[in-house]
């Protein structure tokens, strides 16, 4: 195989190559400005790594999912940790008729292979707009396969994983680190660990208007910093803002920490 053949492969990414397709608006202006293409990628994997489950990873993608569902595209949830609650999904504007849940909990054997198989099928299904997966440990090889499937099926694949997997290599063109590391329990940081077409260190805040009791500040752990710093051996850093959160408000901060090509770290803040 010569170099030309190699470069034509779908899974070879050239540094400096910026995704041309217009992104899918996230519903948050600041995040749109941060992500290459002005929004979520329409195909390929996006990894979202949360320090603690339930701090807003799903809320970050829901506006875009709702829009996809109204466009007649399927939203397929593979092995969600709990039951996606219909009344709340409706409140977020989701078209329930387009939601499919893959539940393999009654199949004890070969659960993981089955899950990955199911997710790959969902990614390859052309009418599927977005496929969501909750998984912990998964081999790089498998993620690569999933990334190719997402590209082939032109599906946006969202993989939710615990934060500790931020150190693991990943072929996903976009990786977000999501952690509530601020002084305020209802303020969360979203770190863009990897994003194709941008340099790292974009950060923005996402604020939500839900009631939030106050508590003392909590610093990011050294492990978290290390995890981000070693990610892929590329330029990483953790930008931290410790501003006083306004009353009754969740602030999500997103920082682009690693990117494959592109320019300029961006920092922004968003109110949900």
């Amino acid at each position, binding site marked *: 195989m010569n170099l030309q053949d190699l470069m034509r492969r779908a899974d070879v990414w050239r540094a400096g190559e910026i995704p041309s397709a217009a992104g899918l608006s996230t519903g948050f202006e600041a995040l749109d400005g941060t992500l290459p293409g002005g929004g979520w990628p329409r195909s390929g994997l996006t990894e979202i790594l949360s*320090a*603690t*489950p*339930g*701090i*807003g*990873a*799903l*809320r970050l993608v*829901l506006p875009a999912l709702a829009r996809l569902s*109204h466009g*007649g595209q*399927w939203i397929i949830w593979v092995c*969600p*940790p*709990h*039951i*996606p*609650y*219909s*009344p*709340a*999904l*409706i*409140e*977020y*504007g989701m*078209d*329930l*008729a387009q*939601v*499919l*849940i*893959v*539940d*393999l909990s*009654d*199949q004890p054997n070969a659960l993981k292979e*089955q899950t990955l*198989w*199911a997710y790959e*099928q969902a990614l390859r*299904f*052309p*009418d*599927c707009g977005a496929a969501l997966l909750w998984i912990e440990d998964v081999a790089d090889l498998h993620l690569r396969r999933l990334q190719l499937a997402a590209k082939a099926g032109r599906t946006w694949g969202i993989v939710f994983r615990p934060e500790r997997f931020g150190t693991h290599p990943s072929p996903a063109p976009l990786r977000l680190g999501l952690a*509530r590391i601020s002084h305020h*329990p*209802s*303020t*969360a940081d979203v770190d863009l660990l990897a994003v194709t077409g941008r340099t790292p260190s974009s950060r923005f805040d996402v604020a939500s208007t*839900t*009631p*939030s*009791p106050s*508590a003392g500040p*909590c610093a990011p752990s050294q492990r978290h910093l290390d995890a981000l710093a070693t990610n892929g051996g590329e330029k990483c850093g953790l930008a931290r803002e410790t501003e006083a959160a306004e009353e009754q408000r969740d602030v999500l901060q997103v920082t682009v920490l690693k990117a494959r090509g592109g320019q300029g770290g961006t920092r922004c803040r968003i109110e949900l």
Partner: protein
Amino acid sequence: MRASNPCEPLPRDFHGRRATLPATGYIPGQENVHSANASTAGALWLHLHLPQFPLEVLTRGVATQRACVLTAGEGSRRKVLLANTRAAALGIRPGMPLGAAHALGEVTVLARNERAEHQALDKLCLWALQLSPQVSPVPPDGLVLEIKGSLRLFKGMDGLLSHLRHGLRGLGYRLQHAVAPTPMAATLLARSNSRAIVLAEQDLMQHLSPLPIETLRLEARHSEALASIGVRRIGDCRRLPRDGLARRFSPVLNDMLDRLFGRAPDPRPAFSAPRCFEATLDLPWELDNAQALVVAGERLLHELVGYLRGNAALTHHLRWRLIGRDNSHTSFEVGLTRPGRDFDHMCLLLRETLMRMNLKAPVRAIELYVDDIMRGMSPSTSDLFLGRNQQDEEAYAVFADRFRSRCGTRALRGLGLKSDHRPEHAWCWRYPDDGKRRSLPRAVDPGPFGARPLWLVKHPMTLTTRHGHPEFDGPLQLVPERERIDAGWWDGHAIARDYFIATTTKGSRLWIYEELDGERRWRLHGVFE
């Protein structure tokens, strides 16, 4: 007037009447009852002759990696009747003594199974109904179809023949075929492997004359008598005087020749399809690997698809049964989200199902039973009135079927809403075959509810408490507003709870409740995100 025919029983015609055949002196055009079948109607007959049929019936269910021979005779005088390609490559030829065949290499010896042959021929007729409505079996190893009316559908003779060859390959049979204006001529030409396509009756003589007299499959005494007077070919036979022939060989021979050359009508019983499809395929040897059963399954699926096409029907429910060595049965069902008859799709579903199956015992036969036949439907019109794009529906059905065949029928679900105040009753699962996907509301009136979490915990988790205060990974911060839900006394699932939004020290927001009766326990019921 009824002619008796000692060789073959007279078949019934389309209307179930006994066909009457004039013994001699038949003049074309006089008899018009059988005009639909008589050669004068310009019919065109295609005969399918399966030279290896008795052997293939036994071996087509497996991917043959072995040399197989079919034998005839008893004891030490057993002879090879048929040999498959692998056996032929070893140098084994039909007619060879079995001992000689064994000396040439390792061969699997199979005994003839006439019952299986009979059933397989029936299934083949069933399959052939997609080519023509007029199909009749010619036992033991052939069938004849009237194809004049089908040529347009298949865009000419070439299209029809290539469809036929492709189909027979899928079914696992080798094929010799010929086309002629009379059924018997087609039969004779196909048996002699001439691949002839004779369209006009006047050309029949030229094609049939050189054929050996044996192709007529006469009774032994007749063929011996003919041989003794030096008649070896059909052309020789034709040159003999009719009267003499009738005297010496009973009217049968004249009769046959008349039918052969289209001077007498030759009605064939039309094969009619049964109401449901049922097929069994016996395997030549036992298989203990479920994936090896795919070949046999494919053969049956080919038959099913042919049957469905011939009947302009669809199905969405296939019942399979694997019969084990000890007559134990393993049954499984393959459902289609949308009725269909797509071979590739059904094959994929079968493969997925077999892949995750553990066989209890080696399998010796496989059965397919389909009684859920929807007639008068074609795949393209079945969903005419659905609002959604046809192709989308199709793609969804393919996706959903694959999923369900591999992960179980309940693995893929949709979400629904119910009008109920109790959180666990305000939603429901929906399954792809519910058929109510379209009737969902796109938005609901939020009503006087408080905030609802994005995740509902399936089995509410009991929380530990410290000084009456709930804990989850440390003390929980509770929002002072509470939502009281007290409902359900009417159906025996009464609840009385106070719901709170709580925040953990790590920042997750939870939906918890305090029971208002009993032990007043705290439980986790949802996660907000």
